């Protein structure tokens, strides 16, 4: 990618910082989705075992 001008007109340092922020934001979103899934399954399992679905 060397020689390609930055489309936002930002410095290399700023672009690198932005990419890292975006990466951590993406990881945070993935973690959030997994968290909601796990909580749902655990709550579901608890209710099924308790017979609340009947």
């Amino acid at each position, binding site marked *: 990618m060397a020689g390609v001008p930055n489309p936002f007109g930002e410095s290399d340092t700023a672009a690198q*910082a932005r990419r890292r922020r975006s*990466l951590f934001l993406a990881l945070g979103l993935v973690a959030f989705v997994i968290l909601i899934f796990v909580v749902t399954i655990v709550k579901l399992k608890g209710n099924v075992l308790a017979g609340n679905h009947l």
Partner: protein
Amino acid sequence: MTDTTASPVAPGGVAETPARWSDYVALLKPRVMSLVVFTAFTGLMCARAPMSPTLAAVAVLCIAVGAGASGALNMWYDADIDGLMRRTRGRPIPMGRVQKGDALGLGIFLALLSVMLMGMAANYLAAGLLAFTILFYAVVYTMWLKRWTPQNIVIGGAAGALPPVIGWAAASGHTPLNAWLLFAIIFLWTPPHSWALALYTTGDYAKAGVPMMPVVKGPASTRRQILLYSLAFVPVAIAPAFTGLGGPVYLAVSVLGGLLFLTLAVRVWRSHAGDNGNEAENGLYGVKAGSKDARNLFAFSILYLTLLFAALLAERALGLEPLNLVKAFGG
């Protein structure tokens, strides 16, 4: 009194240097968060209620995220005075690395997220208490009390004292008197802890116009109030050993630590801490000679609170039964 040159933030809070992901972590006040997690987890364990370990971990995570949201909202609102104080001028907004609006957005987003997830993973009582705590810290303490009254940290201390109650509520769905006893311990611990620090950072608070007790009432009055609050705090810290919450380890830790706490408080009362415009020379623990007693009390107060809650956790882990001499407090 308003030396705005201390802050590199341009008018309007526009950041001058690119933000790193760690700057956003710093907005969440991770050191405060760790203490909140510790006390909340202790409250959760003390409830002795059957709870899925996964949901318990999520509940503690929600409390941690909620505390982080409070920290971000606090840094958003206090960006102007943070830039004036040595202790806080290195924060991301005064340093010009994060924009004020970003901190506000992050704080609101995390607050909503944590409360919603708490309601889903635990129960609505815990979610409601968490929402109240965030609002109390961000609005009542940060926006109102902090710049208005020297009682700011006394009343505002309620926000820092609520996490064990939230943890207890998350595990059991209710908050008996023993949960509120944990609240009372942190609530009464806060004034001597905060004022001991304020005694040797008076200049910083005065420069920022924050009406901390030593700035408004003077060092002598502050030292007297530290002793009075300590006299109220130590018996309350020992009380769980008699209410079915703490066992023999807790009794030993609370009594021995309490005696040392009172000794240090008396030393502060008899000292000249804060009289000479004492200013921290090297972080939180570097002080001029006259204020060493205040520094010692500040440092030990952190250790004592940690030991109290660690004793409760250790007794749960070791399966030690509480002494339970006054059963009316419930479990």
